[in-house]
C-alpha cells in the first residue's frame, strides 16, 4: 500500500494535502460536503488581531485560467477565531491546523500570533507577509528582505509553535526573501501567495474589482509557483509548503519533486468543493503509475534527478 504521510516540524500529516488559507473558510462548513478528516491539515482563513470586514464588493473577477480576489482579509479577529471558529471546527475535525495571520504592523502581527498560537488545535502558524489586498500592510513586508527578516524575528519571539512565512511571488528574486526569513528564524516557508493581476469590464472599461487590482490564483499560476519552489529549495534548509494552481494529484507530485514537503490546494476548492478530497483519493493511483511508494521520498527529487 502506498504511503502518503509526510512530516512537518515533527507533526505527522496523513497526507500532504492542505486546503490553502482563504479558500476553505474555517473548515467546518466543508464537513457538510465530505468528512474533512481525510485532509492532511487545514490552513485557516487569514486572521488579524481585530475583526475586519475586508474590501467592498466586487471582490472577485474571473480570468481565463484562474481568478482574481480582493477579499481583504475578512475575518472575525484572532480572539473569535480561537474561541468560536476553532471550537466549531474541533467538533468535525480531529487533526491539527495551520493558523494564517495577517497584519499591518509588527505589533499587530505579534499580538495576533500570540493569540492564535495558544490554541491546542494549531500546530503551526503561517505568517502572511504577502497579501496584495490590504492597504499599507501585508505586501510591503513581503517585498523587502530586511523588513521580512525583522518581522519574522519579532514574531518568532512570541510564538511557541513552528512559524511558517508565506512569500509573495511579486518580487524580482524570491530566494532573497526566503533566505531572509530563514535567517529571521522561520521554521518553514510557504509559497506562492497570489500574483498581482487585474481585469476590466468590457462595457464600462472600469476595473471589475473594487480595489482595482487583486490577487491572481488558479491553474494559470502553476508554472510560476513550481519555479519559485524549485529555486527556494536550492537556497534554504527549512521545509517548503508549496501551492499555486494545484488542481490534480499529478500537480502535487511535481511540486513535491520541486521541493515541497506539503502542498496546499487553493482556488480549486472554490471551483470544485470536493477538490482536496479528490486529489487525496487520486494520489495512490498516480503514485503507482510513477512507481512512488512513499510520498515523502520524492521531496526535492528534481534536485538530484
Amino acid at each position, binding site marked *: 500500500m502506498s504511503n502518503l504521510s509526510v512530516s512537518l516540524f515533527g507533526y505527522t500529516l496523513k497526507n500532504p494535502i492542505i486546503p490553502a488559507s482563504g479558500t476553505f473558510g474555517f473548515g467546518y462548513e466543508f464537513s457538510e460536503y465530505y468528512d474533512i478528516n481525510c485532509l492532511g491539515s487545514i490552513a485557516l482563513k487569514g486572521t488579524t488581531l481585530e475583526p475586519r470586514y475586508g474590501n467592498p*464588493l466586487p471582490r472577485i473577477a474571473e480570468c481565463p485560467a484562474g*481568478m482574481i*480576489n480582493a477579499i481583504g482579509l475578512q475575518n472575525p479577529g484572532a480572539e473569535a477565531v480561537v474561541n468560536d471558529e476553532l471550537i466549531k471546527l474541533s467538533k468535525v475535525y480531529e487533526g491539527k491546523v495551520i493558523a494564517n495571520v495577517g497584519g499591518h504592523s509588527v505589533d499587530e502581527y505579534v499580538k495576533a500570533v500570540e493569540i492564535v498560537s495558544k490554541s491546542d488545535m494549531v500546530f503551526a502558524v503561517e505568517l502572511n507577509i504577502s497579501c496584495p489586498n490590504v492597504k499599507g500592510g501585508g505586501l510591503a513586508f513581503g517585498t523587502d528582505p530586511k523588513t521580512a527578516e525583522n518581522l519574522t524575528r519579532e514574531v518568532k519571539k512570541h510564538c511557541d509553535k513552528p512559524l511558517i512565512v508565506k512569500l509573495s511571488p511579486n518580487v524580482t528574486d524570491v530566494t532573497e526573501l526566503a533566505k531572509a526569513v530563514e535567517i529571521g528564524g522561520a521554521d518553514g516557508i510557504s509559497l506562492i501567495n497570489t500574483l498581482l493581476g487585474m481585469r476590466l469590464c468590457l462595457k464600462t472599461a472600469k476595473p471589475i474589482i473594487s480595489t482595482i487590482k487583486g490577487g491572481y490564483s488558479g491553474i494559470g499560476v502553476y508554472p510560476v509557483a513550481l519555479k519559485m519552489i524549485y529555486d527556494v529549495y536550492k537556497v534554504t534548509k527549512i521545509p517548503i509548503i508549496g501551492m499555486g494552481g494545484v488542481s490534480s494529484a499529478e500537480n502535487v507530485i511535481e511540486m513535491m519533486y520541486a521541493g515541497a514537503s506539503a502542498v496546499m490546494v487553493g482556488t480549486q476548492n472554490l471551483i470544485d468543493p470536493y477538490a482536496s478530497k479528490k486529489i487525496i483519493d487520486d494520489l495512490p493511483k498516480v503514485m503507482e503509475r510513477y512507481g512512488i511508494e512513499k510520498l515523502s521520498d520524492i521531496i526535492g527529487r528534481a534536485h538530484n534527478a
Partner: protein
Amino acid sequence: MREEVLKVISNEPIAKDTYKMVLCGAAEKQKAGQFVEIKLDGFTLRRPFCVADQDGDRISVVYKVLGAGTRAMTEIKEGEELNTLTSLGNGFNLTLCDRPLLIGGGLGIAPLLYLAKELKRQGKSIDIILGAKNKDELILIDEFSKFCNVYPATDDGSLGFKGNTVALALTVEGDYDGYYACGPEIMLKNLSKLSIDGEISMEARMGCGFGACMGCSIKTTGGYKRVCKEGPVFMRSEVLYE
C-alpha cells in the same frame, strides 16, 4: 449544496437575449429563492442562476446573455450534461407575511415565478409588480398572468405604469404586510422608501457560491453575511448598502 450532473432538456430563447434552460436530474426539491451554479466548459468560475421553477426532478433557469459565459450557454444543446451545484443559498421565507406583494425588475422576475407558485400552493393570492425598460423586455408576463394579479411597470410606459417598480409599489403598499423582491441593485436599495419591510434576493460576483471564499460578503445589521450562504435572500431592513 449538492454536486449534480444535470441533463439539458431544452434551452430556448424566450425574449430578446433571454433564454430558458430546463435541466433534469435534480435529486432535491429546491427552495424558491435558492440558486444553482453551472460549470461551463472553458470558464473557470461557475455561473450562478436562480431557480425559476421546479417540476419533479426538472429545474428551470431563465438567463440573460450578459458576457462570454452566458453567450456560450446559448450554444448548449439538448441532451448535453452539465456539472452543477444545486440547493445553494437560503431561499425565501414562505411564511414571511400573510398578504405579500411581489416585485420583480428585469431578470429578477425569474426567481419570483417559482416563489409565486409556492405561495399560491399555500393558498395565498398573489399580486406582482413586473418592471422592465419597455414592453419587449418584460419577461414571463403571460406565465404570471395565469395565476397572479400582474401590475406591469415600464420605464417608457409602453405597458402598464410608466415608471419604475418602486414608484409603483409606493402607490399600493398600504394593501400589503410584506414583500418579496428581486431585481437590479438600485431597485432593491430604493425599496427602503416603502414603509413595509420585505425580503430581497441579492446578487454578487462569486468565487465559490457555497461559503468558502468570502467573495460575496455584504454588510448587514447582523454583521457581515455571505450572499451565497446566509443569502441570497435578506430582509431589506438588515442590508446596509455602502
